């Protein structure tokens, strides 16, 4: 027996040891820090006697982080940057254990208990691959964490696409029935929104992301200004290990005569990290360039030189750790994009569409300090700058004239779109978070954030008046959307949250409170429209009224409790709100411009209230057969104060005439409800993955901020009624499967099924009047077709030099593998792509990319 044991031990002297699926217990409970670091803790015990081991040396390899266990065998490491680590546990008289692939997520406490085996002989470390728990019994919200290894394996181009793979989301990025602009994106805890037009304001290189956490329900008081979801991206940092690589991929390998399913895309990335001064100063940088001629290269090539689209992004970081308790990070992110718009009706005059450019920069200084074993704080200061430009370089180069259609009035054959814009937004953010473990069962967190904005917009835009069916009304003057403004709004928030754990059964109670304010720092002009003749008005500014400061209190409550060893329930409810985009506040209200006679079709309203949502969910999770985690969650959301537009007529007017003038108002609402069923397997030798089914209903009174003014322009009556929203996707199934194939080939298969979304069927014979004028215009009264997309990514890593960890990974990334023609939109006559058969009515056809990553 002893000889066999020795034999076994000698076999275990290999560095890459056996894989033991150890019974380690993870708790990944509480949100803790500033959204950019996590905690690692646990208990070390004697494997045979189960007694606590004291003074065990715990070291996170390749970092400066380390500690020792206390008299109860516990260890605790705060402020670990997110990432995947190997952690070494060593004690004289015991086999050294290396726990591999421990993933630290931001705002998560990772609990790893380690059994150690006594040994009189000093042996090579035993390596154990850590396994995450199937369910997190004290997580009272719906959140999905994705580590960098998973991100690399997914067939996605940008990190936003990862959101669309989660339950309860659409292909466009709607979360649980909300608008896409209701999702907040954070990079290292700091916002990166486009606060003028909405959406994400920055791109990141693929290899710069260490983890993403996506909250689709029940996010804490720490997160604000979001109605539907929060995506928190944490970027990589340097450490003591120098590591770098380059990546290159393209989608064109054959002559175009043989393969037209390309965007003529080339993408390259270079990344490197390492120490400047060991254990003190580190650096990380990743830079990516992507050029392509877009999906429309066959038309683009006649007008523009290649490449038509150019995107550059990069992230650089310097981390300074004067002590293990202090970390100072200087971070810079940039993102530049140049492209040309494509519209099918302009395909014979694409040069008439304006050139587009976006530049975004962010620089941040982040200080993290561990005050004691139980408390820590983070303070950050950042400057975010976003510039967007439309049209020729200089405003004077724009000539306002209607563009010309061809003889059949289908394609625009000459002239330019009358659009020039220069918008700039700067945001200075000061943010602080304090965390304190008041006692072993009580975690307290508080924080503040102050944002000072500089919002500038100079827009010249004239559009022809169109019928609902898209026909230009030639006798009508062009609609003027021009405006210019420069405002300095200010916003801020304060939050407190407390997490209480029951010592009896580990149940968790989360209580949070958040206070937000927005000071528009603007004045609303008091405008009278004096009728001078029938259907003609003269604007007169009679005075101004200061816009008030908007405040909001948002309580959050969450509860989670184990039901038995294998299952748990959770419930959360919260008030959430989101301030309007600044363009809705400020466009067209400049008193000087109005006094000068400028007349904007749609005027901003600086007194807009925030949109508000009350959302709750209840869920049940359990493990099945110790390998699968299953959950079922019911959610409900009710949104009020949604922004729409309203046509306004002066009280002393003689007649309404044209649709008067319009302004943004809060007068709409929406509801969403649904059930999500998820089964996932996150650990396994060969196969891991998840499958989810979501049933969801999303209905509302308005789906765009221009709805009311559009209806007035088209001559349809405005009736307050609820209808299915365009993203009302009743059924969706998502499959995400990872299979480790022989010959070390990794494969990741994504299958997305989305049931038909609504569209408005309201046919016309002549493009001006409906066929049946007795029927009311009812939005979204018909359904399109189901959408099914299959994406597959396969990769194989070749070790070129084991000593220097030099490797080459070859991958093939196939999107829409079966080249399905999935319908994206249908016109009101029920024609896919309208009368021109616009191919943009279908989602992108199959695309195959191949790439290689060299790392060392």
């Amino acid at each position, binding site marked *: 027996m002893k000889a066999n044991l020795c034999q076994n031990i000698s076999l275990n002297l290999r560095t890459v040891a056996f894989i033991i699926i150890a019974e380690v217990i993870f708790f990944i409970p509480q949100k803790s820090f500033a959204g950019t670091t996590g905690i690692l803790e646990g208990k070390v015990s004697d494997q045979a006697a189960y007694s606590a081991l004291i003074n065990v040396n715990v070291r996170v390899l390749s970092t400066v982080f380390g500690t020792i266990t206390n008299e109860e065998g516990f260890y605790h490491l705060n402020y670990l940057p997110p990432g995947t680590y190997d952690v070494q546990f060593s004690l004289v008289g015991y086999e050294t254990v290396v726990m591999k692939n421990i993933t630290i997520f931001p705002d998560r406490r990772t609990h790893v208990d380690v059994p150690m085996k006594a040994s009189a002989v000093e042996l090579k470390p035993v390596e154990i691959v850590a396994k995450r728990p199937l369910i997190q019994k004290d997580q009272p919200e719906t959140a999905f964490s994705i580590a960098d290894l998973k991100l690399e394996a997914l067939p996605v181009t940008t990190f936003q696409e990862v959101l669309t793979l989660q339950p309860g989301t659409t292909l466009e990025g709607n979360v649980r029935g909300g608008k896409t602009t209701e999702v907040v994106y954070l990079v290292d805890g700091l916002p990166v929104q486009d606060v003028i037009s909405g959406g994400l304001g920055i791109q990141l290189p693929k290899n710069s992301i260490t983890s993403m956490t996506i909250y689709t329900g029940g996010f804490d008081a720490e997160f604000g200004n979001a109605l539907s979801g929060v995506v928190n991206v944490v970027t990589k940092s340097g450490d003591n290990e120098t590591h770098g690589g380059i990546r290159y991929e393209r989608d064109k390998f054959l002559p175009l005569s043989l393969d037209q399913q390309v965007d003529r895309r080339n993408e390259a990335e270079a990344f490197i990290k390492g120490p400047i001064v060991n254990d003190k100063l580190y650096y990380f940088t990743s830079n990516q360039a992507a050029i392509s001629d877009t999906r429309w290269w066959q038309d683009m090539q006649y007008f523009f030189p290649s490449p038509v689209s150019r995107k550059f992004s990069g992230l650089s970081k310097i981390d300074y750790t004067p002590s293990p308790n202090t970390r100072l990070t200087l971070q810079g992110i940039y993102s530049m994009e140049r492209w040309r718009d494509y519209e099918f009706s302009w395909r014979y005059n694409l040069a008439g569409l304006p050139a587009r450019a976006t530049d975004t920069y962010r620089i941040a200084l982040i200080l993290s300090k561990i005050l004691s074993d139980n408390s820590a704080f983070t303070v950050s200061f950042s400057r975010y700058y976003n510039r967007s430009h439309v049209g020729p370089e200089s405003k004077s180069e724009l000539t306002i004239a209607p563009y010309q259609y061809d003889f059949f009035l289908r394609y625009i054959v000459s002239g330019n779109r009358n659009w020039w814009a220069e918008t700039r937004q700067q945001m200075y953010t000061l943010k602080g978070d304090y965390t304190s473990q008041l006692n072993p069962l009580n975690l307290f967190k508080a924080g503040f954030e102050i944002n000072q904005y500089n919002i500038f917009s100079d827009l010249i835009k004239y559009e022809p008046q169109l019928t609902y069916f898209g*026909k230009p009304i030639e006798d009508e003057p062009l609609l003027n959307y021009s405006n210019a403004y420069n405002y300095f709004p200010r916003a801020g928030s304060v939050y407190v949250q407390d997490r209480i754990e029951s010592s009896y059964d580990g149940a968790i109670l989360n209580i949070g409170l958040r206070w937000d304010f927005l000071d528009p720092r603007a004045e609303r002009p008091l405008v009278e429209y004096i009728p001078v003749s029938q259907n003609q008005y003269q604007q007169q500014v009679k005075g101004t009224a200061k816009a008030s400061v908007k405040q909001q209190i948002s309580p959050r409550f969450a509860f989670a409790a184990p039901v038995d060893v294998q299952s748990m329930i959770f419930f959360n409810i919260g008030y959430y709100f989101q301030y309007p985009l600044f363009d809705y506040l400020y466009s067209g209200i400049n008193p000087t411009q109005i006094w000068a006679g400028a007349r904007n079709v749609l005027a901003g309203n600086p007194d807009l209230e925030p949109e508000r949502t009350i959302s709750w969910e209840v869920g049940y999770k359990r493990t099945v057969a110790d390998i699968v985690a299953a959950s079922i969650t019911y959610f409900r959301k009710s949104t009020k104060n949604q922004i729409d537009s309203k046509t306004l007529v002066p009280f002393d007017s003689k007649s309404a005439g044209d649709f008067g003038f319009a302004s943004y108002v809060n007068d709409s609402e929406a509801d969403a409800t649904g059930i999500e069923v998820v089964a996932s397997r996150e650990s396994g030798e060969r196969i891991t993955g998840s499958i989810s089914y979501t049933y969801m209903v999303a209905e509302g009174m308005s789906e765009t901020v221009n709805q009311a003014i559009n209806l007035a322009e088209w001559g349809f009556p405005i009736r307050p009624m609820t209808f299915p929203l365009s993203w009302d996707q009743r059924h969706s199934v998502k499959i995400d499967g990872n299979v480790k194939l022989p010959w070390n080939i990794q494969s990741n298969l994504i299958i997305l099924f989305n049931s038909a979304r609504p569209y408005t069927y309201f046919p016309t014979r*002549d493009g001006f009047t409906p066929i049946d004028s007795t029927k009311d215009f009812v939005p979204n009264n018909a359904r399109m077709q189901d959408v099914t997309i299959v994406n597959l990514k396969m990769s194989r890593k070749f070790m070129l030099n084991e000593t220097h960890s030099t490797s080459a990974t070859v991958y093939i990334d*196939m999107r829409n593998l079966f080249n399905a023609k999935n319908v994206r939109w249908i016109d009101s006559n029920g024609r896919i792509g309208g009368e021109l058969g616009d191919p943009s009515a279908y989602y992108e056809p199959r695309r195959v990319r191949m790439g290689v990553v060299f790392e060392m």
Partner: protein
Amino acid sequence: MMKQFDCVARQYMVLVIVAASFFAFDSCEESLPPRNDPPKVLAVSLSAYYAYGYNTNELRLTVDVVNIYDETLADTAAITGAVEIVWTRLPQYRKTFVLSPKSMVYYHGFNPSTGELAFDPGDTLRFNYAWDFTTDDSVSILDDFQYNPSCPGRRIANSEILLLQSSVRIFSKVATIYSVPQLFKLCYIEGYAFGCSVPDCN
């Protein structure tokens, strides 16, 4: 069991690679839709009636061109075309009227001085012609009719079948359109006499 899994996994992988290769390259066409002008934007109809009376005896023809497109077509008018009458019994006898703006009797949107035409959806251009029963060679066909002798002093011809067809081009950017060829039954009546009943033209 691991060996069995390996075997299955290898088969799966081969299948995936083969399938992926097949689907990746089975059809790599992705051409954008060609530009096809709308096939039918104008419609033409030809109608005729036999007008006879005290001072009138002619076949009157009307050509109507309608804009059946959902947009106003505007351009310099390039009106060409013809109306053709062919006597089916004696096809050597035929008459051709050439279309021109001068024969338009209804032309909303047409400016004769500039030649510009703005043809609104649903609007009609109308051309009128009158045939005096002479051919393109100026030959009268009246003597070739077969007359009913029942009424002295008045010639009432048996029915004859005429083939009527027209072709029209309004704009240079719109192809020539053709009316549906139709057969017209003509019973020529000469003169006007009291006391004679005119039989149905059959």
